[in-house]
């Protein structure tokens, strides 16, 4: 078990291509950190630098108290689980799991103890004598996890380990890995492009884009207090709705105007603005789909924040219904996640209410939030 500290880490490839820029993060012992972001954002490169599989161009990497920039991968006391979990086909599950330990000349009885214990944790004890071709995709992935567990490393590194599994198995393995973390009480660093995986598993999430850390926070804080438009749009599905609005003073109120629509912004939100001078300017307003309502009750509750919309499409998901809406002053659809008993149907002209307590505002130029927490 160990903490991991990345201090001003850079990865620059030949041709001056910067894959990771000024990455700073202190990962505490036993934390479950998830690096998330779109393809090419630098998350796998960062993980590979921690593993020692990529050279660090600049900065310092500590595992525990030890500076490990120049330490070989096998000497870093880490174990990595890749997306591609190829197993040696001629070896049994036991031998595949034991292979790394044999390379390290671990005594036989110790190997047996560790493999059997890991197999028990992963519920594959009954498969130890089988060859890989007799295993399902999920079982093979468990063996790959087992190979990492038997090493008893200080830090586990996972690089998109579930992306080769089908949707159902992915959800099941997600839970298994979370349980595994709770049981092993070891530091986990996990890379995924999938924000749902990140949200469900992490104790803290690192959102990356173009090699730069955008925000580091708990899943709920990322969701509730995104630091910029990218994070706001990346975390949450369907994603947050964004509107180009103009903030104007009308009497005692501040209103956000777009198209023919006008939303009264509550005073407590205005009080959170980082700079009052945004009033009178164009900003980006964001609201999540679940904070848009079409019920009479909510229309009454948020009567100063209603918008006339056309319903283009409805998607019934069973537990909820998605409405795809259009209105003046908003390019593309507004997506609302409403009660499945909604009476709104495609082709209807309806009113929706925005929960003004849940509005987000971003600077139009910098795309950063203009709200203090």
């Amino acid at each position: 078990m160990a903490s991991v500290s990345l201090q001003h880490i850079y990865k620059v490839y030949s041709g001056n291509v910067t894959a990771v820029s000024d990455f700073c993060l202190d990962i505490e012992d036993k934390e479950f950190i998830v690096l998330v972001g779109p393809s090419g954002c630098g998350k796998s490169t960062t993980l590979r630098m921690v593993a020692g599989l990529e050279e660090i161009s600049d900065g310092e990497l500590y595992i525990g108290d030890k500076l490990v920039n120049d330490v070989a991968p096998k000497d870093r006391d880490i174990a990595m689980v890749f997306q591609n979990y190829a197993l040696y086909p001629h070896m049994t599950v036991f031998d595949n799991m034991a292979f790394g330990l044999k390379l390290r000349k671990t005594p036989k009885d110790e190997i047996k103890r560790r493999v059997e214990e890991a197999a028990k944790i992963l519920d594959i004890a009954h498969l130890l004598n089988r060859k890989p071709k007799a295993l399902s995709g999920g079982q093979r992935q468990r063996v790959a996890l087992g190979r990492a567990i038997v090493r008893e490393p200080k830090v586990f590194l996972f690089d998109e380990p579930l992306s080769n599994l089908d949707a159902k198995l992915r959800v099941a393995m997600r839970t298994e890995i979370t349980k595994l973390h709770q049981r092993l009480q070891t530091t986990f660093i996990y890379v995924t492009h999938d924000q749902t995986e990140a949200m469900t598993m992490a104790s803290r999430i690192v959102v990356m884009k173009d090699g730069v850390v955008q925000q580091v926070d708990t899943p709920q804080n990322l969701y509730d207090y995104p630091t910029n438009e990218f994070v706001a749009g990346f975390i949450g599905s369907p994603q947050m709705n964004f509107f180009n609005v103009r903030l104007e003073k009308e009497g005692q109120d501040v209103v956000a105007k777009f198209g023919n629509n006008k939303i009264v912004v509550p005073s407590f939100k205005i009080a959170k603005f980082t700079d009052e001078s945004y009033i009178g300017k164009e900003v980006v307003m964001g609201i999540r789909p679940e904070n848009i309502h079409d019920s009479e009750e909510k229309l009454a509750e948020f009567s100063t924040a209603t918008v006339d919309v056309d319903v283009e499409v409805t998607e019934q998901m069973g537990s909820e219904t998605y409405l795809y809406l259009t209105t003046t002053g908003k390019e593309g659809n507004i997506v609302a996640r409403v009660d499945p008993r909604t009476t709104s149907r495609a082709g209807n002209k309806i009113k929706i209410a925005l929960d003004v307590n849940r509005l987000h505002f971003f600077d139009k130029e910098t795309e950063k939030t203009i709200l203090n927490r």
Partner: protein
Amino acid sequence: MVFQREDDASPGRLAAQLRELAPLEERDLLAEDGAGRVLMIKEGTDPGEIAEFASALVGTLESEAGIRTRAGVSDVHGGPEEWPAGYREALAALETGERLHRLSPVQIYGRQTLERIAESLDPALRAQLVKRFLKDSPEAVLTAETRETAERFFEADLNLSVAARQMFIHRNTLTYRLDRIQRETGLDLRKFEDAAVFRLLLMM
């Protein structure tokens, strides 16, 4: 099998690491080929298993030694008299893979039939096919994104959901990209025959 380092570092170290890390059996052999590559002769009869062994070994080299390698795997051969042919096949698989399938570190000779066909086509016929489907601007049509999209889609046996998942993109994004390829080339990659033609075009 022939193993080659991704970087330019010492080939001698690759041979030493393979000797240390590969779970070789009694009749398996390792030899350096004098050109920085390492030849491995592995006993077995199932080409799929031998390819899986190569994948596992490439993974072991990376995770244990931090060495990134590519491997070419030949067909299964008999006695030592057939080994030179196996070596040439593994090398050909490696070279073809390096040129056409950079994303996959393990290349299997027996699964490169279309590549062989593409290589053997008459240059005039090649030019004719390129002109017909890629017009006058093959580079503009065959962008890196288009190549990767098509390769992943083919690897997923034309399964939209699987390919989208492995590319970490939404299914609709993949559909959009395939529609764009269809607009630009007239080939609908969701149809087997069109997919086969496009695959050949990628190899030309």
